């Protein structure tokens, strides 16, 4: 009896080991063939995440579902929701500084006093004069504001009450040649709405991107729900996808929110683009992170990206011939009396948008974008191109007794030494205090947790600081943009300026290229 039992166990063990060895051989063979075994489970054994992980949304193809580990959602007070209010302001501005990669002093096509229609050319880059930058609204040019070294910072337009648009000819993106489409896009002013990676610059029309990516959701702190801007725009999104797919040698990819089962009908019905679903915390909604998991940027190639809202502008222009920059902007953050969503045009005056809505208590910082990757708004600033969020937070220029040891006010943190991790739903009223001084790198493994990519940010940053171009390239600098490592910068115990260092590295790489 005992012998039979032992024999049974031995047989089972031998079978199990044969199975396991052959299973491993399959994995090794798959690696040789270049198949990513993490995404395609070839094993007969299910992955741990297959059994217990988040299930992909119903609409999603399981092989296009990416369950991202790590990251962190920063929950802040002042979520903007509710009905969309009218946010038409009297002044708008076009800001050449919003476009990276163009010469600091562009060639102006208009002068103060000129009248323009929405879609009229305002300026162009001297390096590539065929790429036009056009007026977001109709009205009169009232001011050309200059920054240091006579660089033009704002071209301010006093808007008409009744908006007038330039009516462009409509071209058929399915039949027109690729050259015609490119020439058309450059002439009507939608070219600068795209972005080229690496380096995050206005795309070079001479290059063909490997792929084009659009992220259709945002996970950034206080970011608006993108379904607001998608309502009624299904045709525009489809047209944009059709147009973009003519420009690339690869595919157009949509990064879709995989955290819920609900997918906006405009996205669900779009065809001609490959949809990839992402579940995870911030920065899962960042296009850079999505690119890394869909088809990583090669060191020899480039990809183009477009924000969802710019894609809708492109789609509407292709559909109707009208350059319409109307968009929904979230006024979010603790320093707004009433956080809300407003409908306005690109380049709206922040002064007017936020008038009477800012709390008197404390000094307020207005941020173009979110608290991680946004830019501080300057005095009498205007909405940046591509920005659909204005965040207001309090300046934290106060001393705090034993603030490092016994923090009195709750503050967002990824550290489990802070009681905050016990209250995952708590909304914080964060201020701009640095909560400590800058130090050398000490803690390790922290950035990796905040960046769901196969990249070692700390070693990359050290390579940048050392100016080692080859190593920077090898460690994946071309895959990164400031917004991707912004969360890591937030979490940094040593208070290092990660985004600034990364930009220095990207500039170095661009000079080399």
């Amino acid at each position, binding site marked *: 009896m005992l012998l039979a039992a032992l024999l049974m166990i031995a047989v089972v063990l031998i079978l199990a080991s044969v199975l396991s060895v052959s299973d491993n051989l399959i994995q090794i063979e798959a690696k040789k063939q*270049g198949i990513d075994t993490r995404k395609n489970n070839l094993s007969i054994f299910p992955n741990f995440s297959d059994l217990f992980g988040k299930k992909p949304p119903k609409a999603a193809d399981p092989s296009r579902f990416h369950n991202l580990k790590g990251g962190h959602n920063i929950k802040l007070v002042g979520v903007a929701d509710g009905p969309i209010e009218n946010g038409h302001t009297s002044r708008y501005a076009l800001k050449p500084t919003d476009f990276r990669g163009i010469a600091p002093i562009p060639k102006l096509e208009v002068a103060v006093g000129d009248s323009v229609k929405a879609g009229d050319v305002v300026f162009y880059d001297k390096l590539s004069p065929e790429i036009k930058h056009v007026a977001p609204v109709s009205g009169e040019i009232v001011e050309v504001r200059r920054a240091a070294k006579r660089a033009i910072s704002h071209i301010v337009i006093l808007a008409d009450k009744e908006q007038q648009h330039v009516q462009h000819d409509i071209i058929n993106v399915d039949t027109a040649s690729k050259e015609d489409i490119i020439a058309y896009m450059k002439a009507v002013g939608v070219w600068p709405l795209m972005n080229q990676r690496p380096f995050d610059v206005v795309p070079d029309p001479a290059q063909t991107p490997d792929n084009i990516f659009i992220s259709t959701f945002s996970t950034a702190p206080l970011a608006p729900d993108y379904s607001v801007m998608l309502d009624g725009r299904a045709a525009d999104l489809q047209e944009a996808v059709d147009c973009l797919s003519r420009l690339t*040698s690869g595919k157009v990819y949509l990064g879709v929110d995989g955290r819920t089962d609900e997918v906006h009908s405009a996205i669900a019905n779009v065809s001609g683009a490959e949809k990839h679903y992402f579940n995870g915390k911030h920065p899962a909604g960042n296009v850079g992170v999505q690119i890394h998991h869909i088809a*990583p940027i*090669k*060191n*020899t*190639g480039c990809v183009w990206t477009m924000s969802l809202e710019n894609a809708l502008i492109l789609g509407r222009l292709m559909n109707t011939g009208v350059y319409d920059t109307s968009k929904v902007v979230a006024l979010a953050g603790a320093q707004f009396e009433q956080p809300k969503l407003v409908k306005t045009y690109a380049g709206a005056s922040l002064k007017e948008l936020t008038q009477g809505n800012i709390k008197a208590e404390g000094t307020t910082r207005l941020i173009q974008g979110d*608290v*991680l990757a*946004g830019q501080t708004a300057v005095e009498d600033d205007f909405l940046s191109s591509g920005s659909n969020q204005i965040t207001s*937070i309090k300046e*934290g*220029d*106060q*001393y*705090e*007794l034993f*603030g490092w*040891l016994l*923090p009195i006010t709750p*503050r*967002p943190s990824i*550290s*489990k*030494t*802070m009681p905050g991790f016990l209250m995952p739903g708590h909304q914080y009223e*964060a*201020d*701009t*205090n*640095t*909560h*400590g*001084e800058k*130090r*050398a*790198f*000490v*803690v*390790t*493994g922290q950035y*990796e947790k905040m960046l769901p990519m*196969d*990249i*070692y940010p*700390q*070693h990359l940053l050290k390579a940048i600081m050392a100016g080692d171009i080859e190593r920077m390239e*090898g*460690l*994946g600098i071309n895959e990164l943009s400031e917004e991707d490592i912004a969360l890591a*910068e*937030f*979490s*940094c*115990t040593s*208070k290092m*300026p*990660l*985004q*600034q260092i990364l930009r220095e590295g990207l500039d170095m790489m661009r000079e080399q290229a």
Partner: protein
Amino acid sequence: MGLLSFLQKIEPDKKKSPFLHTLYDGFFTFAYAPNSTTKGGVHIRDGMDLKRTMVMVVLAMQLCYVFGTYNIGHQHFVAMGEHLGFLEGFHLKLVHGLIKLLPIFIVTHAVGLGIEFWFAAKKGHAIEEGFLVSGALIPLIMPPDLPLWILAVAVAFAVILGKEAFGGTGMNIWNVALLARVFVFFAYPTSISGDEVWVSGFEGMASGASVDYGWAHGLFNNLFSWMDLSTFNSAAVVADGYSGATPLALAYQGGWENVTATFSESQMFWGSIPGSIGETSKPLILIGAGILLATGIASWRIMLSMFIGAVVMGMILNGWGATPFMTVPWQYQFYMGSFFFAMAFMATDPVTASSTNAGKWVYGLLIGMIGMLIRVINPAYPEGWMLAILFLNTFAPLIDHYVLEGNMKRRMKASAAAISSHSVHTENEVTHA
């Protein structure tokens, strides 16, 4: 805000007296989190900073301090054969422990922080928090009777050559606390190895050697006799047959039976055995390790892989079994020596450990294996964690190098594949044209 304005009023001039200003800045930022705000980059910052990180580590080792202080006194009386119960003669043991520990603590910090402050003033940067942890660790890993001048030289060596020479906190290659210890180990071996150094307060460790009490003991004797408590007996001598040997030394001589003849398992587990000041009590160290793991400050990868490495090497040595020490069952190896202290507080130092997650596994595993090997094989000194950790500190950048090379190779390969397919593509186009 009265304190704040007072502190701001007494700020010394930075140009005229840089040293005073550095000192002031160090204490001011200790008292008040600065009012600096974010500029460029992110607009909000995590509440965690280096001060808080370091203080958490210091807090995690406080239980070791409490127990270590008491155990100095306890071992002293055990050697005399008096107050053998753990809590008997509580006041005497506590006072003797403090008399031994406080000078070590003060000298460590006076020398270490003094050098830190001086370098910070000279280089014109703020005082960095690294020595908070190093300074708390050093007393715990020294024998209680270590001459203070040796300690001072060791700390100075570790801080100047081990840390400041490399650029300060975050730049050092070797763990500063272990560097101080290894300096004593190689420069003054008789004061940190052998059977005679782990029990304090005697002129020697042979039977009949008399106690060595100082003025502080006399002072407390007056107090205790006035309070009608038992006092230090300056005529006492080391008891007959007492050797002062640690469990590891006994295991080296005669295996596990030889150890259990002197110490019980629970004694070794709870830590009432001779040894370095803070290393003896396993549960209290594990509580500290638990705090570090729960707060995410120390790497669980290093701790776990180091434990696995030690277990594996312990089993291999069991299989070999050439010496009495090798035959000690692997699980009993963890009752002796400073494995847990090294695992919780030394190997996990983020600056000197591997900085990649994959590297941490290798790093911890090798420390566990090499440390156990040194402990059992080394004839001169039956413990290996200090040497193993310093050895792997040296090789941590190499481990990381290979991890990063792997990452870079993966990326280059993907790009190379893209180039080849691209060139095929263009060739086709050319022929087509």
